[in-house]
């Protein structure tokens, strides 16, 4: 039962990893950019949530009504002001800019909030659980987060495949030059992609802040988990990304059962295994 329990917890945390990954995958898909600052943006969102909760007294989950639009607006501005001027010339410049943003975010957070770790208290929901079988209890909070992650990925799929914004994303990704002839302003399309990514980052940041202690240096590990989930799932496939996140979560949970030191390592091993056996991931969609 202990093992079943571990695997179930792994699946649930996998939803969060998929959220880390979805925003990363979106940016890569639309503008062929690996956003090195993605993990730090998640942590920054966690701090934004912390400030909002302290200032307004809102429940951490409810703070999303402020944190999500705020992060989306910041993401849009960051794309237009910092990234767009470097995009399209070569692949390295925008990558370096995201690296710079990553460093600035980490150090800025350190100055503003010190290296002390924080956590958002979510109240009684944290300890609530449902007994699904003898010896197997599911926390209500992890369940809510997992359901939210699945819903967000479903919503992203809808945006991508059912809306004119999604069409603009795909067209720009397919052929940026001809997409402009469809009256699409590339800078705005990229801005919207970053805004959407940052909105998901905001949710991921809130969930992260409720689930674990976070400090200004917590970003890079989140970037790695997100990156691994994207690659395991296969580029360009959001449901694959969810599967990738779950695979990573389960691997970590099983690793932790073997020995605490194995938790993170087991995740990396599964990542390398998938990369070796299926370099394009489990469910690739993009060429």
């Amino acid at each position: 039962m202990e093992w079943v329990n571990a695997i179930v917890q792994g699946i649930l945390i996998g939803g969060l990893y998929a959220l880390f990954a979805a925003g990363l995958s979106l940016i890569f898909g639309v503008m062929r950019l690996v956003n090195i600052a993605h993990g730090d943006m998640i942590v920054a969102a966690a701090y934004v949530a912390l400030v909002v909760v302290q200032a307004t007294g809102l429940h951490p989950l409810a703070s999303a009504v402020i944190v999500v639009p705020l992060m989306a607006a910041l993401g849009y501005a960051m794309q237009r002001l910092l990234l767009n001027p470097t995009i399209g010339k070569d692949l390295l410049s925008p990558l370096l800019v995201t690296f710079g943003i990553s460093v600035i975010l980490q150090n800025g957070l350190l100055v503003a909030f010190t290296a002390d770790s924080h956590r958002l208290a979510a109240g009684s929901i944290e300890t609530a659980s449902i007994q699904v079988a003898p010896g197997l209890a599911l926390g209500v909070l992890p369940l809510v987060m997992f359901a939210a992650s699945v819903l967000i990925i479903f919503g992203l799929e809808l945006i991508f495949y059912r809306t004119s914004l999604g069409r603009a994303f795909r067209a720009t990704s397919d052929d940026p030059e001809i997409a402009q002839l469809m009256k699409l302003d590339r800078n705005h399309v990229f801005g919207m992609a970053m805004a959407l990514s940052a909105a998901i980052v905001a949710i991921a940041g809130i969930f992260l802040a409720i689930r674990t202690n976070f400090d200004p240096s917590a970003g890079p590990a989140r970037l790695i988990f997100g990156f691994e989930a994207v690659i395991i799932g296969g580029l360009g496939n959001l449901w694959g990304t969810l599967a990738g996140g779950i695979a990573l979560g389960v691997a970590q949970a099983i690793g932790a059962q073997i020995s605490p030191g194995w938790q993170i390592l087991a995740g990396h091993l599964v990542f390398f295994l998938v990369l070796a056996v299926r370099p394009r991931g489990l469910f690739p969609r993009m060429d």
Partner: protein
Amino acid sequence: MSEPLLSIRGLKAGYGDFQALFGIDLDVPAGETLALIGANGAGKSTLLRAVTGLVSCRPEMVCFDGRAIGGMRPDRIAALGIGLVPEGRRLFRSLSVEENLVIGGERALAGPWSLERVYGLFPILREKRRNPGMALSGGQQQMVAIGRALMANPRLIMFDEISLGLAPVVIRDIYAALPTIVATGVSVVLVEQDVTRALSVAQRFACIQEGRVSLAGQPGEHDRAAITAAYFGTDVKSGAH
């Protein structure tokens, strides 16, 4: 004669240090079809790219409806009503046939073209509308590319290599659609390898040779030898040697 819809004056353009166009002068009056002919590498595509804003040039080098548009952003130029059916069709790979058409119609000008009209013009596209654009045959892809440009209700539509690489029967279908398109009053620039065919549908033509207009006028005005000479660059001087 009234002001032409598209007017190109002294157009110089290129790619980085490489200059492809050396002072092109051209007019396309409203509602007319201009055939643009010339050998491989003459600069026809570069000319269309300059008009659509995909390669830059000085503002006054391209005027559309009396407005200097040279070097404007491609999305702004497209919004003024200039459509391109690009060389090699360039459909959006991850979009279905219908999505390729719909995206062409986003923020369209007022005009006759709609999804229904495009399906009326190319009925096969209605059958294939859920297929990925890239899953179609070359000729059907060209129909999608044409429909995508029409959906915006452009005032000027430019076809780059409209029949290149297509089977003769498909070329016939595409050309059969042209009169319907022209009848809506749209101006047309037609880049075509098949000179005879291009001249048969155009009121004017211009021959480009190594980045310059080597001959221009009305199809009946020049005999075949003169056009061939302008096309290949076998001018009188080299003939005399």
